[in-house]
């Protein structure tokens, strides 16, 4: 059964990947740009699903982790002139530190209370950046001297393959023994502990992985756009969009979160001619999907598959 699932997944994703990889040959520069952003969001949403879907932790502050990675990378690039790869790794490291700080209350608090802590963390980070605007550019944002590439196609391929790497890593992780234990600790921490699993250790590990990928993606996004700003990597509304994408795609599916993110960002662009109505329509459609199919887009797909 598992092998069957895996092979089916493989046969569906390989052609999709091929089509995506050839994007620069059949997509306009404009849509390449949209998809590049969508792929970064895909990583955000997948990382979030690892915490929510598997570890059972509702993190309302995905942008806390993303923002630390983005600003960590941007600051290092600005003030030390380090090469991009070093800046990205530094940003990822900052995110891990932030992830551990955020995870500590998660080991004590449950449910909504933990959610509130994560929400407050985002606001705190936002204030810190605004208060130290002399160094961070405050609300206006901070330009980075380096960028990934000036070629839209190259940026697109960077984002795509980065997302694919993250997806493979997270899917393998979620389907490994570790994923099974994580799911058990997420569903019933007491029962998991009674089976001898150190719940805190597994949660912390999940937070570190989620933080690292979020931070790397945040840093990549900064070097793609050439600026780090509160509005693009930290604002609560960005976090909300990530959460909606993950839930829309399907909880506990990893790949669903990725699909959800791409769908949402594409829909946002395609409906742009509607002007102000655009966000309203996208939100409405998302709401309808979540209400009608709580298991999300991929959950829907899995159901038809199991029925077959």
């Amino acid at each position, binding site marked *: *059964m598992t092998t069957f699932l895996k092979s089916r997944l493989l046969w569906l994703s390989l052609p999709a990947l091929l089509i995506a990889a050839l994007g620069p040959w059949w997509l306009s520069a404009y849509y390449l740009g949209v998809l590049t952003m969508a792929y970064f969001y895909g990583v955000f949403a997948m990382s979030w699903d690892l915490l929510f879907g598997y570890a059972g932790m509702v993190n309302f502050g995905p942008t806390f982790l993303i923002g630390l990675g983005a600003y960590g990378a941007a600051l290092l690039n600005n003030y030390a002139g380090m090469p991009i790869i070093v800046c990205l790794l530094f940003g990822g490291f900052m995110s891990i530190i932030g992830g551990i700080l955020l995870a500590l209350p998660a080991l004590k608090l449950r449910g909504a209370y933990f959610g509130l802590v994560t929400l407050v963390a985002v606001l705190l980070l936002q204030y810190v950046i605004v208060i130290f605007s002399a160094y961070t550019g405050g609300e206006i944002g901070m330009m980075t001297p380096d960028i990934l590439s000036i070629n839209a196609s190259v940026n697109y391929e960077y984002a795509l393959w980065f997302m694919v790497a993250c997806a493979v890593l997270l899917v*393998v*992780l979620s389907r*490994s*023994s*570790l994923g*099974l*234990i994580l*799911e*058990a600790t997420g*569903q*019933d921490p*007491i*029962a998991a*502990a*009674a*089976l*001898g*699993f*150190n*719940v805190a*250790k*597994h949660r912390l*590990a999940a937070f570190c992985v989620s933080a690292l990928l979020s931070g790397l993606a945040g840093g990549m996004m900064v070097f793609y756009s050439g600026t780090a700003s509160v509005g693009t990597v930290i604002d609560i509304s960005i976090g909300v969009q990530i959460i909606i994408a993950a839930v829309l795609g399907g909880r*506990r599916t990893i790949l669903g979160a990725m699909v959800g993110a791409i769908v949402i960002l594409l829909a946002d662009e395609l409906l742009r001619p509607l002007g102000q109505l655009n966000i309203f329509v996208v939100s409405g459609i998302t709401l309808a999907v979540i209400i009608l199919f709580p298991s999300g887009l991929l959950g829907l797909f899995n159901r038809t598959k199991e029925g077959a």
Partner: protein
Amino acid sequence: MSSETANILEVEHLSKRFGGLVAVKDISFALKPGEILGLIGPNGSGKSTVMKLVMGIERPNTGKVVIDGTDVAGWPTAKIAHQGIGIVFQHSRPLHRQTVLENIKLALLPDSLLRLVADPSVEERARAIAKRVGLEAVLHRLPATLPFADLRRIEMAKALAREPKVVLVDEPFAGLTPREVADFSALIHGFREEGRAVLLVDHNVKSVAALVDRALAMYLGEQIAEGTAEQVTRNERVREVYMGGEIVSHARPELARKAGEALLHIDDLSVRYGKAQALHDVSLDVHEGEFVAVVGLNGAGKTTLFNAISGLLGYEGKINWHNGELSGRSVAQIARDGIVQCPETRELFGYMSVRENLELGGAHLEDSERIAQMAWLLGLFPVLQQRQRQAANTLSGGEQQMLAIARALMMKPRLLILDEPTLGLAPVILDQLSQALHKLRDTTPITVLLGEQNVTFALPHSDRIYVLEHGQIAWVGKPDAFGKEMGEAYL
């Protein structure tokens, strides 16, 4: 310390306070390998807390929990599990997206962040354990498709997988049929033969008497007796706690039944859940003023029957109320027409006070009527009178049940449906509940349809009894005939 074998588990002077409440007071006992001890006590006696203290789910205030010479009191649960204690929870919560086999494999995995792929031996061991607990036929099914007993088997399998030296089993036989009880008893016997020590936690001695070497009875956090099952059963303090006052006796003089139609008349009722047939051609009458009991084990279809009457489920067949057929009426309409169900889950508003819960029940009544009804109910359940201002979720199980019944009565039902009011209640509380029902029956013209697993509780109140078995009516008759005609066969 005995001369032959050392104790594997020693609990010494264990105490636990929650705020001002002393849940466990100076409890001590010891277990040798291959020994089975029953930890017995009514709800609220602290027996479950003792189990949690041993497992590290709660931290004791004082006392020791010594496993194989190491004091683990206050350690985190996972570390205690590694010391060799396993637990079989009463309520199973398996992983729902994983198969039975994967659920068992989970328990066999090491607590390591670095092992992404399970050892190949895990699969083999999981299969062996599944076979042993009787799950080999359903290895690749999802838990949601399994019957209750199989879910409990998964819990057993998971505990077994860790090779514990001491196994804690919470209410081993709750909700199981006699055949399943025999299976589970054999499993627990198997633990003993492998040299594991077993602690069985249960409400009463009877259900575990055949299995245990010794029993320890608790009441209000304290140990009240210890010895063989027989010694504990005979202990005067234990009898006092469990039996309460004199046993109420019952049979009501024959009701002068009105010759006419029944108040509620059910004809060939069938209910299906997907493929499973939950009720099959059930016919049942309830007359005005009658107290009718539907008895049957968990899973027999009692709740399904009541939910069909209340309009919560679709069904085939006819349900006639005094003013016509019920099909097509909404749940709210049926309740307004006078059929009020008090569900087994109680469904109280936990954060509201007792009084607010009652007021909500009587929200549709005129002010004066509501005040009168409330005064009458507080008289019927004096304990609620004392607890008026208290939030519902701070009440004990028995008090919550009384509040649920009182709230249902606030609606002035013509027919009160009571679904398993004794669920999870200790015998001493049953007695108070029993007296309240008796008073209700004798002082009001109310009509009651009671669903019960506990026949001894249902019998004294009933005018007529229906026995429900596997969704079908197996027997109908008067309570005095039940013992003769049905008694042995029921359990």
